[in-house]
């Protein structure tokens, strides 16, 4: 039972950054913008988040630093892809290349430093319940925020007028524009939300997952978050399932390495990446009839005047 609880806790911890980053990207993509720079925004969020926490001693300020850094990165993307109508795929790649370098530059000063990681909730009585107690009532704030975030995004997209307009921009920007909605402004806000989430997800890594910063510590999580959005068919509910499934694969392969299964560790480490490919293929095949992606995803929009 101890082991089961430990595994569930580890899965939640491994899934949370993916869930946060993917939720943000889902909103951006729902508005019709494909921002491939998630990895870059995350890694800058990680470096700035750690810097903030190390300088002030506050995890909360660290997380804010991460959010602001991610948002600033996304503004560069918005300026390029929305303001200058540059190809979104190329801009996203540039953002990632830039972000990896920038985070190394910011983080170099902090390599080898340690901080006190985010505290876990503790409610006497509730947290001590066997098995479920620590899972439900003993997490760090990021985990609760991630769940609130995905519920909030679901409510926004499907239960508010603003969410409907945002989805309209993603499905048909010409019609949305003709109805008088400011497509580019709405998309800019969606991209900024995606950046804020990616920054927070990145900050989670050095603030709660491991209490130190290493260059390149996102290790492709931003790309996996992008794959999760495809996996979810652009729906928040399925995103939760995808993120936790993915976290489970990651943690199980780590445990399998620990149990000394006679498979080289590198092969186990490759599993999450291979799983992503397989899932993408299976899902794309299952939907071969019609695509569920927002119809205008990744297309350039320059309003007629």
């Amino acid at each position, binding site marked *: 039972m101890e082991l089961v609880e430990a595994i569930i806790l580890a899965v939640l911890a491994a899934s949370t950054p993916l869930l946060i980053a993917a939720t943000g990207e889902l909103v951006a993509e729902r508005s019709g913008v494909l921002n491939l720079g998630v990895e870059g925004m995350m890694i800058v969020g990680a470096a700035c988040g750690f810097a903030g926490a190390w300088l002030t001693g506050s995890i909360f300020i660290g997380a804010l630093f991460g959010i602001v850094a991610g948002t600033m990165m996304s503004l560069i993307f918005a300026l390029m892809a929305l303001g200058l109508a540059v190809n979104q795929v190329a801009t996203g790649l540039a953002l990632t290349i830039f972000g990896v370098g920038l985070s190394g530059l910011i983080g170099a000063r902090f390599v080898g430093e340690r901080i006190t990681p985010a505290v876990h909730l503790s409610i006497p009585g509730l947290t001590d319940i066997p098995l479920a107690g620590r899972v439900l009532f003993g997490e760090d704030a990021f985990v609760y925020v991630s769940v609130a975030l995905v519920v909030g995004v679901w409510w926004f997209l499907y239960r508010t007028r603003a969410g409907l307009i945002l989805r309209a921009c993603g499905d048909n920007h010409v019609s949305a524009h003709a109805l008088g909605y400011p497509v580019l402004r709405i998309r800019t806000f969606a991209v900024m939300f995606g950046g804020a989430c990616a920054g927070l997800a990145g900050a989670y890594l050095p603030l709660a997952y491991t209490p130190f910063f290493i260059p390149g510590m996102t290790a492709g999580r931003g790309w996996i978050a992008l794959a999760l959005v495809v996996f979810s068919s652009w729906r928040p509910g399925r995103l939760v399932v995808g993120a936790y499934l993915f976290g489970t694969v990651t943690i199980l392969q780590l445990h399998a390495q620990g149990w000394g299964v006679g498979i080289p560790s590198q*092969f186990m480490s490759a599993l999450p990446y291979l799983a992503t490919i397989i899932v993408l293929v299976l899902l794309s095949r299952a*939907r071969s009839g019609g695509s569920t992606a927002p119809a205008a995803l990744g297309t350039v929009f320059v309003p007629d005047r």
Partner: protein
Amino acid sequence: MQLVLEKRAERSNTIALVSPLIAIALTIVTMVILFAILGKNPLLALHAYFIAPLTDSYSLQEIAVKATPLVMIAIGLSLCYLANAWNIGAEGQFLIGAVAGSWFAVKTQGTDAGAWVLPAMLVLAAAAGALYALIPAICKVKFGASEILTSLMLVYVADLLLDYLVRGPWRDPHGFNFPTTAEFDPVATVPLLIEGGRLHLGSIIVLLVVAAAAILLARTIKGFEIRVVGAAPRAARFGGFNANQLIILTFAVSGALAGLAGIIEVAGPVGHLQPGISPGYGFTAIIVAFLGRLNPLGILIAGLFLALTFIGGEQAQIAMKIPLDVTKVFQGVLLFYVLACDSLILYRFKLVSSNQQVTRGVG
């Protein structure tokens, strides 16, 4: 008043010519600011980056050596991007090529195998790179899975495979437990062009590749198909061009070139297989491809320029303690400016007064 983008009636050829130069100029201005923030003398730093490497023979040769894989990979990527196929996993195809070629070098080590070892390694590497690139291409064509994500995921897989091989089965028994194969035999090594220098045969091969790509794009039907499928997919469909077949083809060619670049790097400047054989060539090559405007000759020039930043970055680190990450920031910023300036080929800015704006009709 508001600044808005407006589509030009036709693409501006003037801007098409000067846009890479504007981008480089803007990047240098940005770097000056960055150096100043880092507390380094911007003029000295720029000198270390862009002038110093051009002043001695060793560095000049080293620029050509670094440009070799960049140009080779970027040529392949440019074919993909022209056909609107997004291969961003060249780094993985580079590593797999290196692994496949090294396999043969390791197997023939210490035997009396002759001069055919190196050609066999090159062929194996190109084939392995092509096969590895076909995985995302087939996933895309057969199942519709995003080639961007699958090709990128395979980079991590290739990295782990290489790591396993040099720490496990292929590790040099006399290597003091370092994760590396033994030094390749002379017959498994890319020959130097000048004894005692750095230039090797790979630089000649890459020039041939550039020439071949230029002919392919400008003079053959296939090259025409590639360009039409990317630029005007509808016209290509009416023309009866098979877009899926072109995705497979461009991916295979770019994978083969990346694999070839991988083995040339390992059997040339490095001399053995080890982790970290690439400082991100596969990703930097994306920048090279765009900076060179997806044109073979442009890519050759862009590759030399980006190689200069690698060498300059190393020299700036040694001479002025400027962190190596500055080079990556530099490359990212450069790509931003290149893309932004390219946008002005198709669009222009226009000032409009706010009252001309369409009022929101439906509330």
